[in-house]
């Protein structure tokens, strides 16, 4: 007899593969991966993160709603209690507070499982675009921390000159969240690293009516660093590569690794957000663009290995 279909639980982890479950619990992916497996697991994580984000938003909405209802129930209790001549209406207050706390705990649980968006907005599409360049016989070395700006990554917290505000406190998080080493079909290794510096500004200011208000602002500074490491010494069209770089946002560097000259390009992006950390990520096309220009700057690229 076949088992009846299980109801679909949106954030239950059992629906995912063991690798994805482990990645969600650890908020990290490490080790050596086959390309298709990695793309699949990243897809599962992307699905989980999208659903979890919606659940977080809903839980926050309900929390606020129940606290508002709890506040209103004080007046309702006073008025209806008088009219109906019963104290039972006062039970609404603890009921709404209880529901609000329940939803708040749910919100905090969802928030703790939140993953950085960059892997789904940037890395996964880039891997799909590069799929036919990656040597399927070899594995991709992956080191990803998907937890975003958490306490362990805090670098500094200090007051900065407030300007027009009363007080501004800046917290900086250093988040080198990703390094992938892609073995290409011609024997070259493409190393792609992503670093994020999160700036959180807690602002205290005076409103137009003189009330003190608090606001949180975020700035997310991303750097993608692509390095091409050929299997043996080759020549590079360094001048051509530098000409093709956008000097305001990109940097080109030739680096030496074990006697082999490698080429590296870095590109910078900045995103802003209020309240929550910005979920925007560097466009995957621009990251692949770094690798494309680097590979095309090889004077005589290695032969494709059959």
């Amino acid at each position, binding site marked *: 007899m076949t088992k009846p279909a299980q109801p679909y639980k949106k954030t239950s982890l059992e629906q995912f593969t063991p690798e994805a479950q482990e990645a969600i619990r650890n908020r990290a992916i490490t080790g050596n991966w086959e390309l298709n497996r990695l793309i699949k697991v990243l897809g599962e994580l992307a699905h989980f993160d999208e659903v979890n984000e919606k659940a977080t938003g809903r839980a926050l909405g309900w929390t606020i709603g129940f606290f508002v209802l709890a506040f209103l129930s004080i007046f309702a209790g006073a008025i209806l209690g008088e009219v109906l001549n019963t104290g039972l209406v006062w039970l609404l207050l603890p009921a709404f507070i209880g529901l609000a706390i329940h939803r708040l705990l749910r919100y905090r649980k969802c928030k703790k499982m939140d993953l950085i968006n960059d892997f789904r907005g940037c890395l996964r599409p880039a891997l799909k*675009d590069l799929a036919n360049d990656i040597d399927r016989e070899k594995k991709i070395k992956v080191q990803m921390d998907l937890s975003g700006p958490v306490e362990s990554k805090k670098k500094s917290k200090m007051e900065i000159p407030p300007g027009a505000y009363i007080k501004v406190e800046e917290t900086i998080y250093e988040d080198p969240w990703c390094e992938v080493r892609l073995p*290409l079909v011609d024997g070259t290794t493409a190393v792609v690293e992503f670093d994020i510096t999160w700036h959180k500004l807690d602002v205290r200011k005076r409103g137009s009516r003189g009330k003190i208000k608090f606001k949180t602002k975020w700035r997310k500074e991303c750097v993608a660093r692509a390095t091409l490491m050929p299997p043996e010494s080759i020549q590079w069209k360094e001048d051509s590569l530098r000409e093709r770089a956008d000097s305001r946002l990109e940097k080109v560097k030739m680096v030496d690794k074990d006697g082999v000259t490698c080429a590296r390009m870095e590109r910078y992006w900045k995103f802003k957000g209020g309240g929550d950390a910005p979920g925007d990520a560097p466009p995957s*096309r621009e990251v692949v663009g770094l690798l494309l220009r680097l590979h095309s700057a090889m004077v005589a*690229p290695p032969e494709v290995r059959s």
Partner: protein
Amino acid sequence: MSCMASAGLLVLRQCGQPAVGGCSQCGKSLCMMHMAGGTCPECMAMGGQVDDSEAGREAASRNDYYNTYGGGEEYGSASYFSQGNRGAMGPGAAGFTSTGDDDYDPFDT
């Protein structure tokens, strides 16, 4: 005869599978996978035609990347790019300029 359709993005190369026919536009020999519609994916991509096969999407994506970031002998290995590819590559990275509204210098910090 082996298939001469392009494969890859960074490491551009020929498909190499056994050919079963030729492209009706450029004449190059094609395998079963690249033969859909009688025209090779590159010719379809360059002509702006939509080919929803995997090979078609790959060719369209490659065309798009090369138009943005350039390619060809003045830039990479000439042997990697066919005459048709070079024609599609456009003026190198001319379209690749910054957005202009960012006054922040990333490498000063």
